[in-house]
């Protein structure tokens, strides 16, 4: 994986590390609040029945994020 991957590109069971956060406004603050800063390890746990949102393990908590928000979370291989 290189820098151009986003959180949508990992499938359940895969890990990645956040390289940049491109979200803006309140979503950005929300993500920062839950500890999603650069170099944070993220694991994809699964997708909801509709295929979206997906659940991620972030700093010990399971957080569901929608795919359009995942697009703004850039990652690289851990």
């Amino acid at each position: 994986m290189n820098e151009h991957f986003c959180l949508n590109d990992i499938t359940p069971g895969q890990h990645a590390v956040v390289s940049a956060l491109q979200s803006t406004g309140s979503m950005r603050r929300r993500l920062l609040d839950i500890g999603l800063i650069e170099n944070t390890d993220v694991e994809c746990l699964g997708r909801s029945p509709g295929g979206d949102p997906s659940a991620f393990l972030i700093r010990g908590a399971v957080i569901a994020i929608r795919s359009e928000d995942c697009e703004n979370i850039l990652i690289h291989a851990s």
Partner: protein
Amino acid sequence: MGLTNSSVGIKAVDSGLVIQKQSPDDRVVALAGNPNVGKSTVFNGLTGMNQHTGNWPGKTVTNAQGCCSTKSHAYVMVDIPGTYSLMAHSAEEEVARNFICFGDPDAVVVVCDATCLERNLNLVLQTIEISPRVVVCVNLMDEAKRKNIKINLELLSTRLGVPVVGTTARKKKSLRILMDSLDQVCSGPAQRAPFAVRYADAIEASIAQLEPLVKEKCGGKLNSRWLSLKLLDQDESLIREINAYLGERFLQDNTLQNAIAQAKTILMDRGIENEDQLKDLTVSALVQSAETICQGAITYEDRQYAAADRKLDKILTSKLTGYPVMIALLALVFWLTITGANYPSQLLSNGLFWIQDRLTEFFAYIHAPAWLHGVLVLGVYRVLAWVVSVMLPPMAIFFPLFTLLEDAGYLPRIAYNLDKPFKRCCACGKQALCMCMGFGCNAAGIIGCRIIDSPRERLLAILTNNFVPCNGRFPTLIAILTMFFVGTSGGAFSSLLSALLLTGIIVLGVAITLVVTKVLSKTLLKGMPSSFTLELPPYRKPQIGKVIVRSIFDRTLFVLGRAICVAAPAGLVIWLMANISVGGISVLNHCASFLDPFARLMGLDGVILIAFVLGFPANEIVIPIIIMAYMAQGSILELDSLVEMRNLFLQNGWTWITAVSTMLFSLNHWPCSTTLLTIKKETGSWKWTAIAAAIPTAVGVAVCILFTTITRVFA
């Protein structure tokens, strides 16, 4: 020092929250913490109160307070909504932040989740920045132990510079140590210097530039380092609160404005050009500090500690099984409710009508006038008896079952599963959580809508909450289903069929919710779905005994009490309407025949429609009103089983079309008075309240007319 009601802080915190001290020496303690870490359980354990608890983030949306005391102090504990940080994003987070920052609590207890401590420390660090009088309460220690997570509380306490205690709030004993620490914190000056987060050099430099002046100007009312940082940040809602707290003159001060400008130049020179960058760096520093503090203090001995949760999630939220399991669980809850309620309902009804007979004998014995017997026994008592025997058993079963699901942590999974359909309708999955609350009571569901951040989506959720039948409407639906579609013979199969039909009605309600949400999103409330994050908490084993006791005492009896308060006067009014005649015809008949033509169009009759109108104070009394009205006209005087009730309805011209129409109208009509008042309070607008009443009514009338017309054409 301390809290006075005149101080702007407290009143601004949450309209309605006034700290009630028993004596002026009482210490005010805020209970803060991330969502869903067991704050309310700690609160209940300390105060002996029974704030509703549940395993989902956002359950507590308003401040609650209670008292407790130790040998040295008396405390007023304030349970505030869960929040991830003090940089507020939503209404309920603002409530929390304002109380910690401007409510002048004597101490703050930050309740943390032991299984997810590192992230929780973010809030701890932000709180310590504001006030050194902090006790960190690491709750859910039992869960951490089960998951083999080892936490070195002493090391954490040394690093943080504030007391850190481990608790298992479900076990009251463990809270004693929390109270000891609280006594310590409240008794004297802080022993140690609390941990100070070190920010990026540029930020530290500008804080250093600003702080001396801020310290001088604010006169020690707020922590100057924290205030300096916030002034650089210029968060609008916070600035508003600062103005209210320190007075507008504080920020209008020229020297201060100059100093802020200068400090900002320092930031600019070092490449921090806007507030967003500043916020990023601030938060990063907090998160990194939390990481450093936890290093070596928390060890995960079992990396697979959450394996069981993941397995459950696979079943409950996967593509293949997510929806079927959801519907099956719903049907199971209904089946248990209907099956379980059948027998006690019959028993209660027999008992209560036996009492009615004795009351009648008594009235005859004392030679009471017939009208008095009519008003009190046939009016007030009989409606009460109906409401109690029809409502109490299903509620006493449904509420505990539902609370079990809630405690186990299933509700957020429903929101997760349903987010996609709601997003299609330009809303968000948290609306599903509000709907679940609506099952209990729509008014509660509407207050619960506060967990939705976007004001537009919150309004959508408020306007559509009524499409979920509340507990007042369940008994109506169950009774009609049983009488007309399943048969009253009883047995496991027929109750299964009832449960499935009821599930079908709920699914219809959800479908209508989605359609109406979509239509609103394209018309009155145009907009795109906003972004959303939803935390899926770990599953917890519910405390079954406690759940049963609490849900019966706190919810069932409360709702029943409300119903009785409404049913008694309604019984009186109905009896009077049925027995006072104008021109040889009772008032009730006048009203009913006036509404009859329109009601027939909808597949109902005038009596049913008037019952819905008179049921405005509480939906529970709709069926009793129908019965009373029919009985006043008919010949049956004793009515103690569903079979007789069915006969009564059939005599009055009911067909299966009437039954379906009544159920459809029960699902879709104006919200009850309590719900409407809650909507007014939550939206602050009569316009939206009127719309909230008009939408379900219009839908109900349309659906009923459509259904009746189609079936009449084909039948």
